[in-house]
């Protein structure tokens, strides 16, 4: 098992490098650079090209692509994330201030969606064919199909503008100190973010539970005279939960990448919002660092899922 894990980690390193290279290449192929973003097009013709070139050189943009990429990568290997080209802020500082906001939002949404989605999915499976099942199936389809921004706008209109229960956006206000002060700001974005996650978990849990309930060991348990709740929860649900856990594992990267749309709609100062700003301003170092963190989150989630799968199913590692 240890060999399996080590080998997976060794595969992960070149994959991360390759993905980062591709992201850097993608940025390189995008027209313009960080300096061109600083110029108002209305007055572009009035700027002094020589002075703009001096700025490009100062920011290191005059170097060839491969030199810049290698410099970024070697700095990274030494633990130096570099500085934002737009504002000169250390990227470590940007991450340190934005990441907690995203983690807070995503963690609440993930926990909520896992609990509620699993319970509703199991309920739907147990009530298969009933009105409850049909209603939950429709709700699940709507949750998966309707875009997040729509739910966000509706939530703002209903709960913030009409009912006045929650603020329209932002993470905090002057004078807020504790998490509980900020809680009203967190409720709407976290709930909206969790709608799609909940719907997905619910649909997955339902089909997984139905699959588990059709297995022979369930019939055996019933034939042994076990109470129905015990058959369903201790035997059926436990088995059904395994693929759900895998699904949730694959959603862990949202903790890092953030939900770009939700952060935009709710003016949430997280990583997703920062990523959009950095892409717009072609701030290479910031984009690359956030992309790297997201890539690592995806790869680590994939590793965790693989390891869990190998632990659960010996055929996976024996197949190697």
């Amino acid at each position, binding site marked *: 098992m240890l060999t399996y894990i080590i080998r997976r980690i060794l595969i992960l390193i070149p994959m991360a490098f390759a993905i980062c290279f591709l992201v850097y290449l993608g940025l390189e192929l995008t027209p313009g650079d960080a300096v061109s973003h600083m110029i108002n*097009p209305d007055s572009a*013709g*009035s700027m002094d090209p020589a002075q703009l070139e001096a700025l490009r050189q100062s920011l290191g943009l005059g170097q060839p692509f491969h030199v810049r990429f290698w410099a970024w990568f070697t700095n990274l290997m030494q633990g130096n994330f570099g500085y934002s080209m*737009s504002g000169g802020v250390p990227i470590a500082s940007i991450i340190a201030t934005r990441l907690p906001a995203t983690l807070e939002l995503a963690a609440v949404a993930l926990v909520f969606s896992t609990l509620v989605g699993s319970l509703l999915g199991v309920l739907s499976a147990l009530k298969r064919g009933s009105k409850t099942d049909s209603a939950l199936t429709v709700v699940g389809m709507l949750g998966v199909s309707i875009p997040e921004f729509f739910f966000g706008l509706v939530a703002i209109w209903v709960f*913030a503008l009409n009912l006045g229960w929650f603020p*329209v956006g932002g993470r905090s*206000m002057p004078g807020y100190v504790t998490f509980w002060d900020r809680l009203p700001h967190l409720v709407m974005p976290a709930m909206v973010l969790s709608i799609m996650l909940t719907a997905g978990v619910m649909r997955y849990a339902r089909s997984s539970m139905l699959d588990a309930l059709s297995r022979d060991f369930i019939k055996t348990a019933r034939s042994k005279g076990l109470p129905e709740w015990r058959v369903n929860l201790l035997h059926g649900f436990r088995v059904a939960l395994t693929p759900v856990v895998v699904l949730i594992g694959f959603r862990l990267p949202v903790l890092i990448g953030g939900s770009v749309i939700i952060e935009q709609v709710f*003016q949430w100062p997280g990583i997703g919002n920062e990523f959009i700003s950095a892409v717009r301003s072609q701030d290479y170092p910031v984009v690359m660092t956030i992309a790297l963190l997201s890539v690592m989150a995806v790869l680590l989630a994939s590793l965790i899922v693989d390891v869990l799968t190998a632990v659960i199913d010996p055929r996976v590692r024996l197949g190697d």
Partner: protein
Amino acid sequence: MTFKTLIAAGLAALLSTTAIAPVLAQPINENPLSDPRVRKAIAYALDMETIVETIFEGQAVRAVGMLPDGPNKPTDLIRYDYDPDKARALLAEAGWDSSRVLDVVYYYTDQATADLMAAMQAYLADVGISMNYRLVEGDVASQISVVPDDPVNGPSKVTWDMLYGARAALALQEYFNRYAYGLKPMIPNIPRMNELVAKVNGTTDPEVQREGYFEMEHIINENVYQIPLYYQQLYTYESDRLDRNGAPYGNEQYNYNWGVENWTIAPDASGKAVMYTNAGPSQFFEVPWQNLGIWVANKFAFDTILEADGALTPIGGEMAESYSVSEDGLTFTFTLKDGLTWHDGSPITADDVIWSIGAATKFPVTQPVLQATMKKIEGADAFIKGEAETLSGVSAEGNTITIKFARLDPNVLLSFSQFAPLPSKQFEGVDPVTLQQAAFWQKPIGSGPFKIDEVVMNDYTTLVPFEGYHKGTPKIEQIIARPSSDNDGNLLVNAQAGRADFGYTKAAGDVPGLEALAYMNVYPVDIPYTRMLWINQFPHPTR
């Protein structure tokens, strides 16, 4: 030079004079857009009155001439009112090839621009002109502003046929300065315009400038070198809670005497006088020399040397107690008020001002009018190139600073009404080229009526009154600025939630929503901001 290009150059020169332009209406090269009849046809084909009323919901003013209405614009310009029959006749006369498809580009990403492009496509199709349109992205400057190696005959380096863009002017010369020799990406050299550009930039006499503006407007108007479409307006919005106590309205994109220290706002439930606004920083505060007044937090936090009124006419000193310009216009002297301090309590010195002038000269994205003034200071060239450590034309004696100019600049007073000095000690070791990357811009120390108190980057910024401000301590107790660009996508939501007491927008689409709020007042302000079409008259490689 071939005989054909000689003829073309001669015609280009002749066409630049107003008297004969209508007579010699024919192309000057193989590009049919060099034919004034075709350009006029395009102007006649666009129903700008309807476009303004529909796409812009009446929140713009149809343009006649480059300059906004005022004393510097002639009143007898040809209006080119919508007349598709006349457009068709002109195209027929010019022998327009209807199989030709114009390549039209734009660089604004808002919906109104996309709608305008679609409308233009339909209007031009109606008279027999086909066009495609596309958004230019990335390094926009190199795609719209690069000039041909041969500014007389071309070919152009830009590859489009028409560009939809704007001219937002701090000084009126900005509307025309690109007509100077070798600066136009799309129009062959026009000798008379060269002379007129030099004329309006070479004098401080408003009468002489006006003569120049009149003649340039006529030349552009009669030859349709550009097609002005509409004058954009700026909308200041204020909630009922806010009282400006008689302070005037003005062009919020720049610095003017808005009397903010006297503004009051109704206290909130806790009894505190808090004003909500937007345009707070999301990553850093922008250097106040780049976009001057656009970022409202900068206007709260920084004072300028001189002061302008709402129409941006210099009216007196702000940080300066007194000032004067020599008779030849080449020496500008001002004396700082006694006792001025930065928000951290340290004194504002002549050294701060001198360092700031030098830094603004070197800072690559200083606003063009401001930078043009700085670059005319004696020794500026050597200073920028690094051949001199200081600007030789700037000196100080006590609190009096003297600036000597190598060349006359007509906008010295205007520029210094927009120029906010910075505390030099905060920038030790910082190269002015990368000034924006200094740590200072995470929480700047200013000189204005409000000081920056708390910055939660990308969430909110608070400002509080600067006790002892030289014009009087402001009355509003706290300003909370939400982060946004100058085009705030969350403006209406925040306004409906009572989180917008003051701000401004140029987005016409926001105005009806703001006006629908019972507690919101919206004031349109005429600003020098003309949206227009540039027409590429040069032959170019893609044709």
